Each structure stands twice: as C-alpha cells, then as structure tokens.
C-alpha cells in the first residue's frame, strides 16, 4: 500500500466534534476524525471560524483557571494544532452561519478542486454547505476501507464496529 495517502479533502468544523473529543467514554468518533486528518489528509487540521475558535480558547482558559501555565497553554496549543483558526476571515462578524458560508466560499475559491466538507449538525439542510454531523463524518471515514485498515493495523486495534 502506498503511504501516506494524501486526500485533498478540506474540513470546516464547529464545536461539536471538539466537545465529543472531551468525552471520556465516547470520544472514538472524533479521535478517528483527527487521526484521519493527520494521517490521510494534506490539510492536517480542520478550519474553524474565528469567533467560535476564540470562544473555545476562552472556555479553556476559564475552565483551567488555577492550573499552571504549562497545563493551560499546552491544551490550547494542542487544540490549535488540530483546529486552525480561519484567519483568512479576519475576525469574522460573529454570525456563525454568515462566517461559515463566507469561509466555505473562500476555501472553495482557493481550492476549487478539493472536496470541502462541513462537519456540523447545524447546517445539515443548508443548500450550499450540506454539512455532516459527527456521526455522518465518522461513517464516511469508517467506510474508507484503506484508511481503516491502516488505522487498525498501525494501532493494533480490532475492527471499530466490534471491539474498538
């Protein structure tokens, strides 16, 4: 098998997939997604509109008040490694739908031949964004036989639907 694969997919995410990664019992779908980004995609990280990105960083800071600088800044840096603030929007105008549409249009213009996927349950019926929720993106990635075989082999885990 040729490795690494370089899928040209580009992702825009909202807070849902990040929140799921915080879940102790049920983080496997978002973990697969983030591993898919780092192992299989040329983009390596997902994009997020600036207002939402800032909200998550502010939330991390609020929730880690009293923790030492190393602990607080490390979790923020990890988040920023996986989810990049789409600074090409500048600050955005804070309207999530508007900013997501604008980011979608910008990325479509910059990468006209790359599949652009929005991971959010908020815009599932949106005619342009056609977003997928966390479950749908997980099913989508899980149906990529080549990636799943790589993932299961590399990390010595069983099939996701039986023992993962």
């Amino acid at each position: 098998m040729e490795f690494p694969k370089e899928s040209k997919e580009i992702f825009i995410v909202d807070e849902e997939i990040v929140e799921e990664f915080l879940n102790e019992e049920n983080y496997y779908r978002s973990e697969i997604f983030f591993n898919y980004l780092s192992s299989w995609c040329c983009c390596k990280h997902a994009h997020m509109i600036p207002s939402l990105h800032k909200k998550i960083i502010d939330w991390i800071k609020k929730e880690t008040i009293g923790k030492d600088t190393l602990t607080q800044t490390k979790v923020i840096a990890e988040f920023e490694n996986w989810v990049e603030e789409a600074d090409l929007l500048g600050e955005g105008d804070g309207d999530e739908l508007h900013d997501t549409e604008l980011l979608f249009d910008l990325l479509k213009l910059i990468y006209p031949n790359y599949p652009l996927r929005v991971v959010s349950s908020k815009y599932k019926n949106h005619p342009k964004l056609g977003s997928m929720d966390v479950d749908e993106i997980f099913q989508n990635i899980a149906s990529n036989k080549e990636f799943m075989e790589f993932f299961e082999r590399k990390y010595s885990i069983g099939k996701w639907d039986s023992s993962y």
Partner: protein
Amino acid sequence: MELNKDSEVKSITIVKGSSISPAERIARKMGMEDFLEIMVVKNSPLRMITREIKGAQKPTDGFRDAISSAGLLNKKFDF
C-alpha cells in the same frame, strides 16, 4: 525533557514521518507512518522541543493527555 510549570507552550505542530528528511527519520529511528511533535516553548531551557510519536502511539494521544491534565474530561461547552 521535563518542563517547569511556568513554561508557556506557544505552539504544537505534528508532522508525518514521511514529510521530514530521510536523514532526520533515520537519526530519530522513525518510520514513514510515525509522527514528529514539535513544541515551541517559552520560559524553558529549550525553545523548541521535539518528540517522536512512534509505534502504537497515536498523534492524538498528546491532545487527550492535555485534556485530562487540564481537568477538561467530560466537560461541556457552555457558551
């Protein structure tokens, strides 16, 4: 290396083994499927710290550990 609690992590970048030079990969005993974590830190003897993510270690493990250390497991966003 052990960082002190006042150290400030400015950035973390994780790259695939396949994207670094073959010489660097050999020196670090890394495979194409492994990853290299590059951390830029302030208030630390070393400004740049690198760590190989090899074998069964996932590139996401550091994020999970950081979430756990920060006490954010099972928390919900409330904004």
